[in-house]
Structures are given as structure tokens and as C-alpha cells.
């Protein structure tokens, strides 16, 4: 019962973060800031939803099968934790290599220009 409640809470929180990611994806100004919303809202929300499923699996202890499913879902969580930031980074990096100029704030600086200048000199 309590586990069910916690599971529902986790899944609902995950969906709220998904909403935040989706809204951010539409509202933010350029590729890089959109990746912030898409890459990270995604990570935490999928983690929360999968954790919710995992707890839901644990709710009745009548066999080993449920525990195995729980562990498998935890393994999926670890996989997401490991690969999601990497793919976000890979997309950012690829975008920069492809020459997409980041939109900067008023006094925001772009430290990466130093590598780019060096590159042009060569």
C-alpha cells in the first residue's frame, strides 16, 4: 500500500519533470539551451518513472520473479545514468563541431573561441 503510494508519487514527479523538459525544449532560444532541457529533464524523469515501476514490482513478496524484475529495472536505471549524460555531451560536441554558434547572454562569454582561434591560425 505504502509502496504503491510512493510508486505513484515517483511516476507523477517523473511526468512533471517530463513536462518541464518538453516546455523547455520549445521555449529555450537555441540548440545548446534546448539540449539542457531535453538531455537532463529526460534523465531524471525516466529515472523516476523506472524507479516507480521498480517499486510497483516489489509490492507483493510472493516469489523471486518480482525481485528479479526489480533488479532488472534498477539495472536500466544505472544504464540511463551512465549513457544519458554521455549522449547529451556527444550531441553538444557534435553541434559545436558542426559550427552552430551558441546564443550568449548579455555578459556571457564563450571560452571555446580560444580553441577556435587557435584552429584558424593553423
Amino acid at each position, binding site marked *: 500500500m505504502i509502496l504503491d503510494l510512493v510508486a505513484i508519487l515517483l511516476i507523477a514527479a517523473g511526468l512533471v519533470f517530463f513536462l518541464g523538459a518538453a*516546455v*523547455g525544449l520549445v*521555449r529555450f*532560444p537555441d540548440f545548446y539551451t534546448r539540449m539542457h532541457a531535453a538531455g537532463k529533464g529526460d534523465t531524471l524523469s525516466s529515472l523516476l518513472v523506472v524507479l516507480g515501476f521498480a517499486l510497483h514490482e516489489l509490492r507483493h513478496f510472493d516469489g523471486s520473479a518480482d525481485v528479479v524484475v526489480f*533488479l532488472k529495472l534498477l539495472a536500466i536505471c544505472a544504464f540511463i545514468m*551512465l549513457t544519458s549524460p554521455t549522449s547529451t*555531451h556527444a550531441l553538444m560536441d557534435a553541434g559545436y563541431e558542426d559550427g552552430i554558434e*551558441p546564443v550568449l547572454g548579455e555578459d*556571457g*562569454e564563450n571560452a571555446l573561441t580560444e580553441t577556435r582561434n587557435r584552429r584558424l591560425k593553423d
Partner: protein
Amino acid sequence: MLYRLLIFALLMVTWLVFSGLFDVFHTTLGVLSAAFVTWISSDLVFEKREIPMAARFRQAGRMVHYLLWLLWQVVLSNIDILKLALSPSGLSRVQPCIVKFDTTLKTDFEKFLLANSITLTPGTITVKILGDRYYVHAISEHFAGGLDGEMERRIAAVFADPAPAKPEATEGGTD
């Protein structure tokens, strides 16, 4: 050799979690598969084989502690970005910049861990690592302030054994 056994054990645990069937036939298949994977790709994980096994286990313990802390940070700052995305005035606070900083971490795995921790905590994404220098895209100066080095200190503390090295490098111990 000891490391091969460790990798084999981790893979075997992973197999049992995947499989869920513990009869003799499937366990034998698991032993064969784990041995095969150990044979073809055990050189991929745990690059520094000279670190004693006990140090590895201490590192693994601290690593779990660090990951819990990281998870909490991720939740905290995700709430931040949620506010940013949903509040009507949030867009005015989006002032992106790309900052750089140098790290003192040595091994690839530590750098990887720091980079992915930065990417996981919202507001900042690692764009590039060139040598020791990190280039981080931050969604505003406020988030860039979070890179004050606390994360780096914590990671350094995880690996602060006599011989600095890589930790648990398979996610086999996911459970």
C-alpha cells in the same frame, strides 16, 4: 588474474540478474557466457591493474556514497530548471555562456566521472575536454557558479588512495 576473476564475478552477478533462472543448465550457460565475455573484453575495464583489490573495494564503497550525493544534487537542480522552464519570466534568466576551468584530476575515469556529473546536474553541460581543461556550457552565470570545485573535491576524495586509480568500472554491481 585477480582482476579477471573480479570481472568474471561482476558479469556473473549481472547474468543472474538478467536471467532469473537458477537451474543448473542456465547457470552453466551463464558461466560459459561470462567466461567468454571476460576472455574477449576484460581488457576494456580496469585499466590500472596494479592497484590492490582491497583499495578497489574501499573506492567502490565511497563511490556509492558519492553517487547518492550526486542523485540528490540532480534532483535539487532539476527543480531549478523546471522553474526556469515553466515560469513566465524564466526566459529572461536564460543567459547562456561557455566557461572553462582546469582540473587536477588525473585518470580518464575520474575526468569522465566529473564530466558526466557536470552534465547530469542541470544548468551545465560539458562540451569538451581538451587535456585538463573543461569547457562547460552553462545556461546562466548562476548555474555556472555551481562549478566551484566541490564536485571535483568529492571525486578526488573517492579515489584518494595511496595509488590514485580507477574504481568500479563496470556497472555490473548495479544492484
